[in-house]
């Protein structure tokens, strides 16, 4: 059963060494990420599932490493045998040495996964252990402004705003209803993972808090934290 969830951005520039002289731009967001990570551990999970988008759906296990080498940066986090995709690499970086505190499993969900399959995967993940915490990596649209990587699409900011409200309100129905085609067109990296979260939290009335929502480089970044009432049998 899900006991906590955290929602995080995953741009390579979240790692200060990547951003270099401009790393301070995201200092506030890093602090908020840290708060959200701390809350995941404070919930006392016996399994932490780290979930990010990738080309395919897969369980990478716990013996992992994340590297930014394909992005031209010689930095690697963790020293396990399985190499993680970018989203989970940033998740691995956010966790640092805390992967030793609790049993941790890294999983990816394919960018094109249908909403129903995401919801079902979420339900399964929530059932993996009595107390599951979910670390969800996912970004908003990269089409918010003319300077965005995907240039300007007028639908981008309204969609991100809608997601921000859903994350603030713990609104699983709103996340479950996100349209994959629109999300793909607007270069929204978070759609599948947010829908897995919706599946994992289905019927649980999460108490959501939006810790951060910004887009300093034209891509929507969210940090949010979801708490759940203690399961009835505890």
């Amino acid at each position: 059963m899900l006991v906590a969830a955290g929602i995080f951005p995953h741009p390579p520039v979240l790692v200060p060494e990547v951003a270099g002289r401009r790393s301070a731009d995201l200092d506030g967001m890093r602090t908020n990420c840290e708060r959200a990570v701390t809350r995941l551990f404070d919930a006392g999970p016996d399994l932490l599932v780290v979930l990010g988008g990738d080309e395919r759906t897969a369980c990478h296990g716990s013996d992992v490493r994340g590297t930014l080498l394909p992005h031209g940066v010689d930095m690697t986090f963790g020293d396990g045998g399985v190499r993680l995709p970018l989203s989970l690499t940033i998740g691995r970086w956010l966790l640092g040495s805390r992967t030793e505190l609790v049993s941790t499993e890294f999983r990816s969900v394919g960018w094109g996964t249908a909403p129903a399959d995401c919801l079902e995967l979420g339900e399964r993940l929530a059932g993996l252990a009595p107390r599951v915490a979910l670390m969800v990596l996912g970004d908003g649209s990269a089409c918010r402004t003319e300077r965005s990587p995907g240039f300007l699409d007028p639908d981008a900011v309204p969609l991100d705003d809608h997601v921000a409200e859903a994350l603030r309100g713990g609104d699983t129905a709103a996340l479950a209803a996100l349209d994959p085609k629109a999300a793909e067109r607007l270069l929204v990296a978070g759609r599948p993972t947010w829908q897995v979260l919706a599946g994992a939290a289905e019927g649980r009335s999460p108490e959501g808090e939006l810790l951060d929502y910004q887009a300093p480089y034209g891509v929507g970044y969210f940090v949010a934290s979801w708490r759940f009432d203690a399961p009835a049998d505890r």
Partner: protein
Amino acid sequence: MRTTVRFRGRELGVRCPLVMAIVNRTPDSFYDRGRTFEFDAALAAVDEAVSDGADIVDIGGVKAGPGTVVDVDEEVERTAPFVAEVRRHFPDLVISVDTWRHEVGRAVCARGADLLNDTWAGADPKLVEVAAEFRAGYVCSHTGGAVPRTRPHRVRYENVVRSVIRETTRQAERAAELGVPEDGILIDPTHDFGKNTRHSLALLRHTDELVATGWPVLMALSNKDFVGETLGTELSERVTGTLAATALAARDGAAVFRAHEVRQTRQVLDMVAGITGDREPASTMRGLV
């Protein structure tokens, strides 16, 4: 290693690298911002570039980045009559056109263009066929599969240098098979296109490996974002960084440099060639009189 290149009969030696001057007939290109959009301003820019030492002019009708849609007819209108006029004024000048569309390629070759600079790496596969049809030169680029006029977003490469070499040489071999004259084919790692700054820097660091393919290497570095990000400078302060990159790539054997600042680029290349011994000094009076 090739010592000359030839575009529709116009032969140029590359022991001292060539300068390809950028002349944009666009209202919105990132650096010149419409300065040479007007026909006469563009013609004056060609004249100035030639007197500053340009060996090739590269005429563009569509800005590389995203923005206002320019359809085929509009692009042809911006480039083809202009190419004809440049040809009339400069019968021996090598005229290149920066386009990814075969319809534009055909129109400009019919009006006197010698070289098609396919910056979007064969996004329109018929463009190289047009180069073959006219026996024109052709630039083989690398964009990592990017769609024309898009920006890179979290692009990744297992090995960007290997990817560039594989893709550009594959295109070069295909172009030759299709009938593009071999001595008119250039390869371009295409800095910034489908790449982040670190990818672009790695490609400069390994220029020698690109040169070792045997295909003449075109470097299009001028005032690009990777220069600005490396130095932490805005658009107006990228010339020094561009020239530093130019000097090192020239030292490593790159053959052609696409540039906004023709005179400065020519001086850098002449100086590098003087140092490497590929060019005689203009005069050596000091201590010799």
